[in-house]
């Protein structure tokens, strides 16, 4: 059994955490070949070759693969698919864009956001915002799977797999990249941070979101947000934690001014320790919190930042 794992590569850079977590998830399925695709991907491939448990790395470099446009990336994987039983990736927005397209081209069903591997055909995945876990067995000859990174530990490094170049990408002519708006930040990445501090509608404004950011910086944490905070313009879209945002499972998650709707809980309830600060003692967030503090966040958060 052989696995082809689409590595997370952004502008030539490997996202080690997401890729290494997907490697862990794939190990039970067979020998793992990692594919690094992009306009430039050679450096990413070299790095991916160091992940423990990787048997081989394929590198596909072509301007047509830049910015991971779904059409050309899916076509490339179709051309490689013959040798593999499982084609997998970490469940990032890039993979969610590309893999279902690939699955349809291969005429197989997609397994999205898999949180557990039972065997080569059988997988667990959360449905209904994580309120149920479904175990499904695929009858398809090839399985196309995205893995929920929060459910797996990252594989270590120290390996030295062989790197091979593959060709065959061509521009689809269907889509072209225009621009990226990516905020540069020194903070840890939301999905790999050990601590996450998130703010909700209760924070009240974009300016006041600085309170959340100060606490996060004191702790070396990533910053998250509820949908309401993002919709209200307090925080950028890529901070959204939840059913339809990012799924995180840090050692410590601090929810500030967040009520705890099921859609939010879906993205953070597997965190090791959850702290909730909310002025409403009835807020549902307290039902999942290890430590709850009923307080006005405008008093409690600065005090907490100072005392930590």
């Amino acid at each position, binding site marked *: 059994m052989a696995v082809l794992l689409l590595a997370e590569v952004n502008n030539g850079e490997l996202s080690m955490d997401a890729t290494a977590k997907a490697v862990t998830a794939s190990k039970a399925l067979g020998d793992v070949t990692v594919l690094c695709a992009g306009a430039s991907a050679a450096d990413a491939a070299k790095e991916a070759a160091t992940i423990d448990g990787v048997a081989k790395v394929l590198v596909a470099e072509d301007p047509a693969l830049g910015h991971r446009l779904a059409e050309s990336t899916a076509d490339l994987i179709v051309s490689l698919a013959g040798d593999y039983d499982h084609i997998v990736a970490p469940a990032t927005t890039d993979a969610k*864009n590309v893999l*279902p397209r690939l699955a349809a081209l291969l005429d197989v069903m*997609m397994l999205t956001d898999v949180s557990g591997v039972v065997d080569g055909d059988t997988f667990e995945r959360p449905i209904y915002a994580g309120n149920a876990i479904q175990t499904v067995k695929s009858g398809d000859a090839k399985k196309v799977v995205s893995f929920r990174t929060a459910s797996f530990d990252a594989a270590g490094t120290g390996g030295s797999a062989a790197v091979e170049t593959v060709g065959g990408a061509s521009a689809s002519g269907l889509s072209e990249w225009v621009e990226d708006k990516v905020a540069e930040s020194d903070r840890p990445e939301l999905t790999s941070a050990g601590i996450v501090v998130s703010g909700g509608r209760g924070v009240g404004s974009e300016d006041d979101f600085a309170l959340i950011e100060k606490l996060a910086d004191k702790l070396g944490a990533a910053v998250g947000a509820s949908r309401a905070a993002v919709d209200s313009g307090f925080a950028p879209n890529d901070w959204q934690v939840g059913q339809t945002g990012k799924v995180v499972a840090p050692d410590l998650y601090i929810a500030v001014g967040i009520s705890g709707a099921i859609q939010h809980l879906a993205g953070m309830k597997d965190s090791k320790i959850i702290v909730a600060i909310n002025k409403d003692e009835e807020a549902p967030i307290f039902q999942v919190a290890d*430590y709850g503090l009923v307080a006005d966040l405008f008093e409690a958060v600065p005090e907490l930042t100072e005392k930590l």
Partner: protein
Amino acid sequence: MKVVVPVKRVIDYNVKVRVKADGSGVDLANVKMSMNPFDEIAVEEAIRLKEAGKADEVVAVSIGIKQAQETLRTALAMGADRAILVVAADDVHTDIEPLAVAKILAKVVEEEQPGLVLCGKQAIDNDMNATGQMLSAILGWSQATFASEVGIDGDSAVVTREVDGGLQTIKVKMPTVVSVDLRLNEPRYASLPNIMKAKKKPLDEKTAADYGVDVTPRLTVVKTSEPAERAAGEMVGSVDELVAKLKEKGAV
């Protein structure tokens, strides 16, 4: 330009689902069902395109059980012109997989020849996030997923997408499939007069067999279980107490 909007009937987002005791699935009998929230956003966007003179007809399509016609009536009340119901199951617990839905939608697209398909990014029941991408693949069209801004400009569309790192803007060739994200717009409520008018709008009824699509699932559900429950925590009385607890646990 014609716009096709696939809308799915799902459990209402406010309802907390219950897993059936025998592990055979979740209980959908007698629970409130609504249009998938992302699909409301897609319908809204289609109507706005029509209002802006960029689209001339909006066709809503749903695949599922007969009761999905209620969802289609909602789309009609919001402002869609016509609807197509494709009956593919007779039990509310039978979910039609994205691959089969995409194949049926591809046949509808062949018949309707739209310039644009606007679907939701994700159905909040199965959380698959797959149908739009699959449809685009089957049609050999371009795709633009997770859209927070859509601009139609002749034979191309400029779409801003919500991605992990922030926002990405791409330009796709028409016809295209766009899947919509939460920030694209705020869907309108249907007014009472429009709800009345919607009752008279055309709603065609077809079956999956009419399109020759086999909807047999590729994934067999082995079991459905409850997620691990979190143990109840404790309330702390002050920031000092919280800091002490976190230090004790080695969390900070």
